[in-house]
């Protein structure tokens, strides 16, 4: 059983404070959704937790199983079990998915331990089948010339292969048509429960029709202003974000 605890987190980009006192605890097996209008700091939160160098954490802490990860490099955080599914995955020409994933899997093994290539490919292909990814894909360069849907499926494939403790999924539904969304959702649902905790960031409710969250949080101006179960998402969908704004004004 693992726990990711975000405590009173404040994040700035340059001079601008974006995340202002965000707190949330996620346990293994849980799926949390964070919803909110554009510009409330959802993506900033995800990147800051993953350790992106452009973001400065000015206050608060992020604990993974009770240990602060703020002093860790992005790759150390990743190997400790944090996975960020990017909203805009980078294109990396010339580096094939197979080689890249192999290097990433190898990086998680002890020094001197050799990767079992046969086992690796067997596992890779089964995950690819699940995500309906053509096997030819493995020889293509990472995200290079991929469609939006291909990029997102490639993210989920990596998540499946790297078996993180917690996955931060940043607008995984953006750029997906309904068919691609369904495939991605199936991939995620196959992984949920058990040892994986998920934080889903989304602007729209529709993703939550496919990946049903245990908890829904509304983020506004850098922090959570409302929490509930999946019905909150539906309410939000029906009433719009202005509703939250008015609620806040009242308070």
């Amino acid at each position: 059983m693992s726990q990711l605890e975000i405590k009173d987190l404040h994040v700035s980009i340059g001079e601008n404070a974006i995340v202002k006192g965000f707190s949330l605890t996620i346990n293994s097996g849980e799926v949390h959704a964070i919803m909110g209008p554009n510009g409330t700091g959802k993506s900033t939160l995800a990147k800051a937790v993953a350790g992106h160098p452009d973001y400065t954490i000015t206050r608060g802490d992020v604990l993974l199983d009770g240990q602060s990860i703020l002093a860790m490099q992005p790759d150390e955080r990743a190997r400790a079990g944090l996975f960020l599914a990017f909203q805009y995955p980078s294109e990396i020409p010339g580096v094939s998915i197979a080689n890249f994933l192999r290097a990433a899997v190898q990086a998680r093994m002890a020094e001197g331990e050799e990767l079992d290539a046969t086992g690796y490919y067997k596992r890779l292909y089964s995950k690819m089948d699940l995500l309906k990814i053509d096997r030819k894909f493995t020889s293509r360069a990472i995200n290079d010339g991929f469609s939006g849907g291909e990029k997102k499926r490639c993210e989920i494939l990596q998540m499946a292969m790297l078996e993180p403790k917690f996955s931060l999924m940043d607008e995984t539904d953006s750029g997906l048509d309904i068919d691609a969304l369904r495939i991605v959702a199936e991939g995620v649902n196959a992984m949920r429960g058990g040892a994986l905790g998920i934080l889903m960031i989304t602007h729209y409710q529709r993703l939550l029709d496919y990946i049903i969250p245990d908890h829904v949080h509304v983020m506004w101006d850098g922090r959570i202003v409302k929490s509930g179960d999946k019905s909150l998402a539906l309410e939000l969908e029906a009433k719009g974000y202005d509703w939250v704004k008015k609620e806040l004004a009242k308070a």
Partner: protein
Amino acid sequence: MTNLTETILPEAPDATENPVAGIDQTKGDFQYKVDYEFDAGTGLSEDTVRYISSVKKEAPWILEFRLKALKIFFDKPMPTHWATKDLENINFDKIRYYLSQGQKPKRTWEEVPDDIKRTFERLGIPEQERKFLAGVEAQFDSEAAYSNIKEIVAKQGVIFANSTEALREHPEIFRKFFGKVIPTGDNKFSALNSAVFSGGSFIYVPKGVKVAQPLQAYFRINAENFGQFERTLIIADEGAELTYMEGCTAPKFSTSTLHSAVVELVALKGAKIQYITVQNWANNVFNLVTKRGVAHENATIKWIDCNIGSRLTMKYPGVVLKGRKARGEVISIALANDGQHQDTGAKMIHAADETTSNIVAKSISVGQGRSTYRGVVHIPKHLKGCKNNTECDALLINTNSRTDTYPAITVRGEANSVQHEASVSKVSAEQIFYMQQRGLTEAQAMSLSVNGFINDLASQFPMEYSVELKRLIDLEMEGSVG
């Protein structure tokens, strides 16, 4: 590196083999004691050239050729009106132009003196020879210490010899082409090479013979203040095929070393020559090399040129497309790190109808390193159906990395097409973060990106070389981030 002075047996020079009086082999400020059996001393004069020619017991025409070249060398100015001023830092008076233990290479590794052998063993040459080569020549300073060709290849009539031997034993084959592809006066350094050349490979592949495994030469500079001037001439007769690979290294000295080779290729009708170089000279080496091939009808010449080491490399492998439907190709990879300038490129001279040429050049500049691409594509009047495609991409790693691109294209006539494209890119911080997020260290991420950049070219190398290339690039990229 092993110090040579301790190991070479101090034999007394044979009077007949060392006939040039008046050369003081100890003059100059070189650091090693004269333990080489043959040493032309420091500095360059007519006496130096006569000395080299006499120890090699050359025919009079060769000495004449050398002396004429020497005069051209002295007369020609440095090409600094277009090239880097760093060339002015070469002090020709402080260089040693000929050092050897003897002129006859050994045919088996057992016969090679231990310490020279140890050097090559450490470089993995004998092992590579056993595994995948048709023949090897291993040059140590001025002469080959070892030269051998697999019997099965020799039986097909393939000649694989050093320049001295070949000009002596097969003048009827080699004299016809020697100095014809690259005339002595082509440039200052081709003239220098023509005056003092020693070593290098002379290869003849008879009609229709396809040499399945590569022939390899390995060039090793061991002495300080030394100039290595090997001369290579490869002739593939009609329909013949050959892959030739060369590697080079030198220990790092505080003073500069000069490597100035001339390589001439002749691909007769329908022949194919592939010439692969992995250059990893130490950072004190001026590497100024002239390489050109002539491709006759339907012939193909392909240069795969990879430059990682040296202080300054100036090298633009060329193909003269002399026969109809000849093909020329240059694949160039350059990596310039701190204190290095890789000034590389290609020349494609179209001289017949329907000839095609292709240039792909990729350079990586790290730290304060500077990479320069220079290219020439020339299509003269009244040719039809000629095509050139050139692509240059530069990758800049650090804020102060530098790259320059200077292609020169001349096209006459309307029936030809030329396309040139160049771009500059960097490894973006987002790419690195993305890979770090998957658990790779920053250095691993950088290495993957850089190898990805050259991946399509590296895959054209024979497997063993592409693994070596990747390893060398990883070494160079160490500490380049952050």
